[in-house]
């Protein structure tokens, strides 16, 4: 019993000391906290130390997290990229088709605009036609158009584009016509040189060019001169563009020059045409 009594008092003292120490620490911390809260609100050296010491750890942790997230995202992306690729290729093809269609629409629009310009610039009654067939032979130059007698088209009527004269209706049925192109060897028409007003006969060559006949050597004609329809005989209206002089050959013999003419119309891209309904109007009246 006597041995136990000092041991108990020692334990009590220790507990009292611990209580005091704990209260002291708590009070100190409370004071520090109060100072922090109601103080100047600036980082103390402790704060700076913590800031300096922990930020790299934070940075490292953040990098690791970012890597993990990025890896996860890349994995997900990889899983979806094939589908995206397919979808994008399909979209690309679709847009390519749209662009091609748009380009074609623009080309058609330009061609039709030229025809409309011609129609508005001239008072001749016309009917628009489309080429549906081309002469397959090497020695003739005809095209088949989708207009015939039911549209008012008749044989002999001139056929033009916005650029100039193309040919003449050769044969007609109710809904279709055969047009003899001006570049055909069997085609000939009266023309005049626009500047000098000299007359000549323009013959097709079967190629993409004309030959201008019966131009006297004394006539002043040079490369680049414009050739237009003369309108004699009422077959073609006067002043329609035919082409430009591309070559003039003066041979020592003979009375006439050899003149080559480049067509105003590009025969390689012919699609839409206008048939001038000649019988509906007299060209002589139209000129007046």
């Amino acid at each position, binding site marked *: 019993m006597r041995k136990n009594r000092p041991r108990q008092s020692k334990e009590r003292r220790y507990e009292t000391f611990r209580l005091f120490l704990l209260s002291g620490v708590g009070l100190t911390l409370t004071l520090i906290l109060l100072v922090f809260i109601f103080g100047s609100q600036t980082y103390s050296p402790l704060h700076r130390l913590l800031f300096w010491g922990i930020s790299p750890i934070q940075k490292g942790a953040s990098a690791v997290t970012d890597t993990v997230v990025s890896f996860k995202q890349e994995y997900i992306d990889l899983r979806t990229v094939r589908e995206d690729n397919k979808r994008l290729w399909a979209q690309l093809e679709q847009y390519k088709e749209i662009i091609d269609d748009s380009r074609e629409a623009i080309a058609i629009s330009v061609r039709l605009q030229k025809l409309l310009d011609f129609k508005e610039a001239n008072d001749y009654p016309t009917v628009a036609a489309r*080429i*549906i*067939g*081309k*002469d*397959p*032979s*090497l*020695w*003739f*130059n*005809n*095209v*088949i158009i989708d207009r015939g007698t039911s549209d008012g088209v008749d044989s002999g009527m001139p056929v033009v584009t916005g650029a100039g004269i193309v040919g003449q209706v*050769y*044969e007609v049925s109710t809904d279709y016509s*055969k047009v*003899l*192109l001006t*570049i*055909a*060897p*069997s085609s000939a028409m009266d023309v005049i040189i626009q500047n000098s007003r000299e007359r000549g006969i323009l*013959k097709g*060559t*079967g*190629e*993409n060019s004309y030959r201008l006949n019966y131009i006297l050597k004394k006539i002043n004609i040079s490369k680049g001169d414009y050739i237009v329809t003369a309108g004699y005989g009422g077959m073609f209206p006067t002043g329609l563009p035919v082409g430009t002089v591309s070559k003039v050959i003066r041979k020592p013999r003979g009375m006439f020059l050899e003149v080559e003419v480049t067509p105003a119309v590009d*025969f*390689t*891209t*012919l699609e839409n045409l206008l048939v001038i309904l000649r019988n509906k109007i007299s060209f002589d009246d139209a000129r007046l």
Partner: protein
Amino acid sequence: MLTITFIFVGILLVVFQTTVTMFTPLSTASPDLYYILVAFLAFRLDVVRSVAIILIVSCTLDVFSGTIIGFYPLLCYGGYFLIRFISIKMPVRESLYQLPLVALSYLIVSLLVYHTLDFLQPDTLGAWHWSRILLRAALIIPLAWPLFRIFELLYSTLRSKRYRINLFSSSSGNQFRDKERLL
């Protein structure tokens, strides 16, 4: 049935040539498909049927092409009888030799018809270009083989009993005589 079918085929070939293979009115690399049919008829069909088929096909060509009526009948009949004559006289009758023969006959007939018409109606035809006509003749050779196969298939199908129409003749009972009549 056979005649009508081959007339239809010939018209289709003409339409195909005047629309699909002629990219521009000045295209030169457009094979003369109708001539391959003419050659096939010369090799395989009897004269009466061939003459009827060629008449319709060449008149169709006259409608869609050219300014001289009769140009294509002259070309087609000329080609037909030339090929028929050569094929009868030729000792070798293998298809390997038939294809160049078609191109060669095309060249000869074109040359003859062109110069005859140029003499009779000057300033009506375009200039003769060897390069272009040789190109056309050369184009016939590779196209003749598949077309011959198609024509042959059609021919053999239509020759089978299912498609045979004998409106004016009844079977005599003599199979050999019936066969002779068909040929």
